[in-house]
């Protein structure tokens, strides 16, 4: 059987090579832009004195969730990260996650709307999403390198691809779940599709869309760690270093820092989602 191997890998490689050859000047240029933005963001965040930053996060969490435990927990968690000497790495990871998530949402939510509205788009996009979600995350890293070179842009690229599916799926689901009688009502009152989208679909689907965004953020965070293999640095980079040097303690410290960041983001986003529901 394996004597006559179908050239699956070869075809894909040729395709990507072709794209790289003709597109890499664009992607490399955009890599520069992204890197500059990221760098500015990072140094901006690092400019804030750490205690002030922690207080600001605490105030922000309190303002968004009104949850005392969560507020105190967030502040303590960040203090622990500071204490472990992982502050700069955390800020770097945070910047990466924020940029990647924003990209994923900016592409994913509108795409989700398209998929919800158009049956044709649904049929095309859904299988692609299945592939995107089941493909091992590491595979995305490989083509990212020729396009963007080693570094943060390649990391963001593969993170966006990896974390976008829930944003698309949940947006689509939220809109398709709108009760039929409300849809009929908006039609009966003569609403256009756009009016229905903004007056009914999006407001009503927003808790579901928020749940999708939450998932996207979590996936982005996990991917950012994996992407450290292609030079994402940050907390993932710390873990990667620890693996290579077999520093168990150091590895766990970085791991704990990731967990803290993930929990803060997750709880705050969840609260935002459910608050809209009530």
């Amino acid at each position: 059987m394996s004597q006559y191997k179908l050239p699956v890998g070869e075809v894909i490689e040729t395709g990507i090579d072709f794209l790289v050859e003709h597109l890499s000047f664009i992607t490399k240029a955009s890599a520069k832009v992204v890197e500059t933005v990221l760098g500015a963001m990072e140094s901006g965040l690092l400019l804030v004195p750490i205690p002030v930053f922690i207080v600001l996060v605490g105030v922000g969490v309190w303002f968004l969730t009104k949850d005392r435990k969560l507020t105190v927990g967030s502040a303590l968690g960040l203090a622990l990260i500071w204490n472990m000497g992982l502050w700069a790495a955390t800020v770097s990871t945070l910047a990466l996650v924020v940029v990647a998530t924003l990209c994923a949402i900016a592409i994913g939510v509108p795409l989700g709307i398209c998929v919800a509205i158009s049956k044709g788009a649904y049929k095309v996009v859904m299988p692609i999403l299945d592939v995107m979600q089941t493909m091992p995350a590491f595979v995305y890293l490989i083509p990212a390198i020729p396009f963007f070179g080693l570094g943060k842009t390649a990391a963001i690229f593969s993170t966006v691809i990896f974390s976008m599916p829930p944003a698309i799926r949940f947006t689509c689901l939220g809109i398709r779940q709108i009760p039929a009688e409300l849809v009929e009502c908006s039609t009966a009152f003569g609403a256009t599709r756009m009016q229905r989208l903004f007056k009914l679909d999006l407001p009503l689907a927003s808790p579901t869309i928020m749940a999708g965004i939450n998932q996207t953020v979590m996936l982005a965070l996990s991917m950012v760690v994996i992407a450290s293999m292609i030079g994402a640095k940050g907390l993932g980079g710390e873990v990667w270093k620890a693996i290579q040097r077999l520093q168990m303690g150091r590895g766990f410290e970085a791991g704990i820092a990731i967990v803290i960041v993930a929990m803060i983001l997750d709880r705050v986003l969840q609260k935002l989602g459910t608050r809209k529901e009530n």
Partner: protein
Amino acid sequence: MAKIYVEGLYKIFGPNPKKALQMLSEGITKDDIMASIRHGVGVNNATFEVHEGEIVVVMGLSGSGKSTLVRCLNRLITPSAGKILIDGRDVLTMDEDELRQLRQRKMGMVFQNFALFPHRTVLENAALGLEIQGMERQERLKLADEALSLVGLDGWGESYPRQLSGGMQQRVGLARALALSPDILLMDEAFSALDPLIRRDMQDELINLQERMRKTIVFISHDLDEALKLGDRIILMKDGAIVQIGTPEEILTHPADEYVARFVEDVDITKIMTAESVMKHSEAVAYLRTDGPRAALRKMRKHNIAHLFVVDHTHQLVGIVSADSAAVLAQRGEGSLTEAICTDIKTVFPGTPAQDLFGIMADLPYPLAVVDEGNKFKGVIVRGTLVAALAERGGAA
């Protein structure tokens, strides 16, 4: 011109409506079409009209096609064949824009499950239609507020739908439709989800509103009592086809077929039947100018009755004579009835409900005369015939 005119309307559910229409025209039944080519017949050759300012109730069991029929009127469902004219304009040839205009301005719709937007306040819900029209916020909220007070929801504007009871939610639904000041209201089982007491209140309220507003209302219901109460006319549907169109009384007293008859047999007949439907058209009357006591006595003997109503030459009711008093006059040899006529008698109009007749007739020593507004003699109700008429209809008796 009829406000809504529908002719030969069909709705077939399935990929090949032409085939099903062909089969229908060959006389194949709905069930057989379903069995052979898996096409559903939603509406089968419906023809009717609705006049300005009347309430027409479309009634039938679930699955009879009444919801489909009404959704064809504003093309929420596109009919397979036929003609729908609203104010003389064909709905089926309208393009998207015209259709939206029609829905936005001319037709308000009220839904069975209220269909309120949960993320909007009551006021914003009531303003929805106006918002879709593109009206300025201030203006639309003002109109919505007026609509809310019209349905008795003053001061509830800032609440959310889930904070309201079912009846109140449906008032919001009604206000949302009324805010458009549409000519036509389509009400799809609007009160069916409410409990019986609230439902009755809402029906009364709709009747009140209708007296003031005179909208053209198409109301869907599966509840005959509701149909009889609200409908100026009733359209009865079965298996997608219209089986009978008529006033509540026509439906009750002359059911078109077995199906309608079965439908109406549970109704409390005394609420629906009127003096007109239980009275006898009596030819036995005495004419004031021509009939003397002897002629009157002869007529009574002939019809085997003890009292005779007296009318003048224009058929206006003058009074009643009894056999006894006529006999006295006859013995005296009088030529005129005038002396024997009792003019102080009870009369009822043709529209008087049958349930009121029992009270009126209870202590009446003579039959009850039915006269129209011009005091013209229409017929007679004797207690025997009243009870018999009711018993025949199987209602209160």
